[in-house]
């Protein structure tokens, strides 16, 4: 079938049809040809009997009988051949054999009819000659319908039937005979031409039918193929959808799980630091009392021990406060709203007024925007960064500059100072919890501040980082998305 698909031509000129199609058309033609049997043969036989009966009076009886017998034999052979063909039902591949048999049969019939011109041509009776011519012409006309599917059969039959009688007429001489002969010749020529046309028409129709059916078969197969692909596509789609849903479900589960764990951790940090404060307070209280009341009554060592206890308690308290702040900086406790950074910054600076006054710090800032954030937490960030800028100062009074810019998606804040700076190799470490770069005696603090800033900024969907060199001040930058982060 693929041959047919690859070389289908749809114009009925018959120019370049495939081998396969030619064979199929041939098969159909041969079927058509054989299809007229046995009726065509019986009609012919009847004609032959009538002719023989009519010519009996003017011809040799023995010759007539022999001729009729030959005719019957040929007819019987052909009918048998037709039956054999029907029984055999040959495929397109084996049909040329049958075509040749049919052709042989037709030629044989033609030859027998042609022989009538020799045997049944009464020299004296013009009427009988004309009758003979009439019958022979009629046979050729009849053969047009039955033999044209296999054109050589028709052409050879017509020639075999008429040429002898034409020759006899022409040989007789005389006006009527010559006229008869030439008329018959003309008739023969016309029959052959018309027969050829009819043959063409039959062949074209068959070709068209086969092309159509080839086309239909091709389209059907293509459609089935497309349908199968469609089906596959649909089932793939369904599978994809399913796995997508599965994935989404898993992601949701995982997110819920992580949220839950996060919430638990934050709660734990909060509760732990909250509950730790109480006994700590007791330690600090009574160590303070001891220090205040018994300083004069104890020796140097005891006073030192008490000092260390007080110091340790204070430090622990600061760390727990920091831890509390750190746990509160998480997503659990976020409350987003429109936040006026000017006001928030003002509050943060107010909270640092003692340190500012003590250090003689100058603080300048750009006009600060309104953003969508948690104002409490943003205040903490400002307070930590400005506080650090003041705390880690060099010899000169600290100068703190706060700038703001924005791009399509984020606000970008920067806090620049002229302090001691930070070496690049520490730039990541300092944002980790409890990381300190300096001894507690030089610069106080618990190492929580920047970790809290980091957590707060990240929970808003932003980032914080530092640009600095040792001895050259530091610029801390952080971003806050203009639109709140989805989920989290």
């Amino acid at each position: 079938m693929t041959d047919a698909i690859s070389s289908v031509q749809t114009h009925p000129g018959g120019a370049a049809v495939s081998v396969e199609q030619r064979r199929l058309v041939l098969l159909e033609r041969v079927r058509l040809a054989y299809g007229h049997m046995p009726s065509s043969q019986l009609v012919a036989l009847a004609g032959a009997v009538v002719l023989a009966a009519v010519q009996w009076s003017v011809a040799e009886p023995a010759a007539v009988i022999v001729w009729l017998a030959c005719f019957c034999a040929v007819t019987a052979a052909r009918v048998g051949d037709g039956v054999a063909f029907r029984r055999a039902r040959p495929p397109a591949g084996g049909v040329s054999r049958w075509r040749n048999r049919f052709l042989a049969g037709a030629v044989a019939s033609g030859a027998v009819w042609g022989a009538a011109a020799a045997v049944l041509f009464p020299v004296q009776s013009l009427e009988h000659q004309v009758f003979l011519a009439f019958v022979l012409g009629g046979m050729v006309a009849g053969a047009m319908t039955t033999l044209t599917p296999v054109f050589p059969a028709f052409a050879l039959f017509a020639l075999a039937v008429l040429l002898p009688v034409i020759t006899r007429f022409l040989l007789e001489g005389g006006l009527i005979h010559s006229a008869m002969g030439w008329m018959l010749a003309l008739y023969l020529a016309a029959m052959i031409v018309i027969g050829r046309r009819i043959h063409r028409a039959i062949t074209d129709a068959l070709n068209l039918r086969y092309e159509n059916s080839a086309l239909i078969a091709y389209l059907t197969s293509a459609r089935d193929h497309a349908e199968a692909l469609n089906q596959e596509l649909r089932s793939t789609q369904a599978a994809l959808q399913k796995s997508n849903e599965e994935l989404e479900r898993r992601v949701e589960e995982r997110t819920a799980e992580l949220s839950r764990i996060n919430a638990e951790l934050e709660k734990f940090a909060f509760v732990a630091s909250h509950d730790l404060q109480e006994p700590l307070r007791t330690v600090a209280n009574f160590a303070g009392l001891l220090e205040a009341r018994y300083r004069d009554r104890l020796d140097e060592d005891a006073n030192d021990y008490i000092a260390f206890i007080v110091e340790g308690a204070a430090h622990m308290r600061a760390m727990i406060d920091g831890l509390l702040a750190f746990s509160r900086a998480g997503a659990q406790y976020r409350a987003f709203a429109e936040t006026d950074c000017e006001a928030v910054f003002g509050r943060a600076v107010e909270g640092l007024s003692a340190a500012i006054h003590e250090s003689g710090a100058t603080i300048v800032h750009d006009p600060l925007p309104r953003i969508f954030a948690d104002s409490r937490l943003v205040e903490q960030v400002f307070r930590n960064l400005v506080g650090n800028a003041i705390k880690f100062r060099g010899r000169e009074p600290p100068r703190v500059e706060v700038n703001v810019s924005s791009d399509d998606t984020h606000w970008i804040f920067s806090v620049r100072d002229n302090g001691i700076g930070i070496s690049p190799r520490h730039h990541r470490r300092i944002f980790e919890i409890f990381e300190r770069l300096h001894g507690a005696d030089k610069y106080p603090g618990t190492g929580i501040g920047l970790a809290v800033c980091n957590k707060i900024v990240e929970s808003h969907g932003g980032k914080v980082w530092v640009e600095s060199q040792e001895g050259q001040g530091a610029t801390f930058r952080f971003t806050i998305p203009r639109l709140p982060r989805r989920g989290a």
Partner: protein
Amino acid sequence: MIAIEKRGPASDTEIVILLVEDNPADVRMMAEALHVAEIPNRMFVVSDGEEALAFLRRENAFSGVPRPDVIVLDLKLPRKSGHDVLAAVKGDAELCAIPIVVLTSSRAEKDMIESYRLNADGFVTKPVGLNALVTEVRVIQNLVRWQATWND
């Protein structure tokens, strides 16, 4: 019931304090602070909410106790919570006149809001250090004096 009675100079400005507190260290601190602030007082201490109410209603073991001039109330108590005690006292026609100051380690805003909602007369977060506590105790003293003039 633990009653720590630190008798200062006997005078009619001596105030009777009911301290509802379960942490002995904080009880001691309160006593020290009163001493340093030189506030004459009789301080009674109960360590849970049920006992506090029994004391105020002078039930069972507490028959014959005086009516306190002020109640200093911790929130984190066993059996009955501080807020429950607050609600019970302020809801009682007889007892509601007694000023109650909530003295708690909690720094949570919602505790403060709830306390004032239940008509507490003061809310103090327990500070660190004796001096800071002395300041708070003086505030409580002023509250009692102010309340007394009001009652008169």
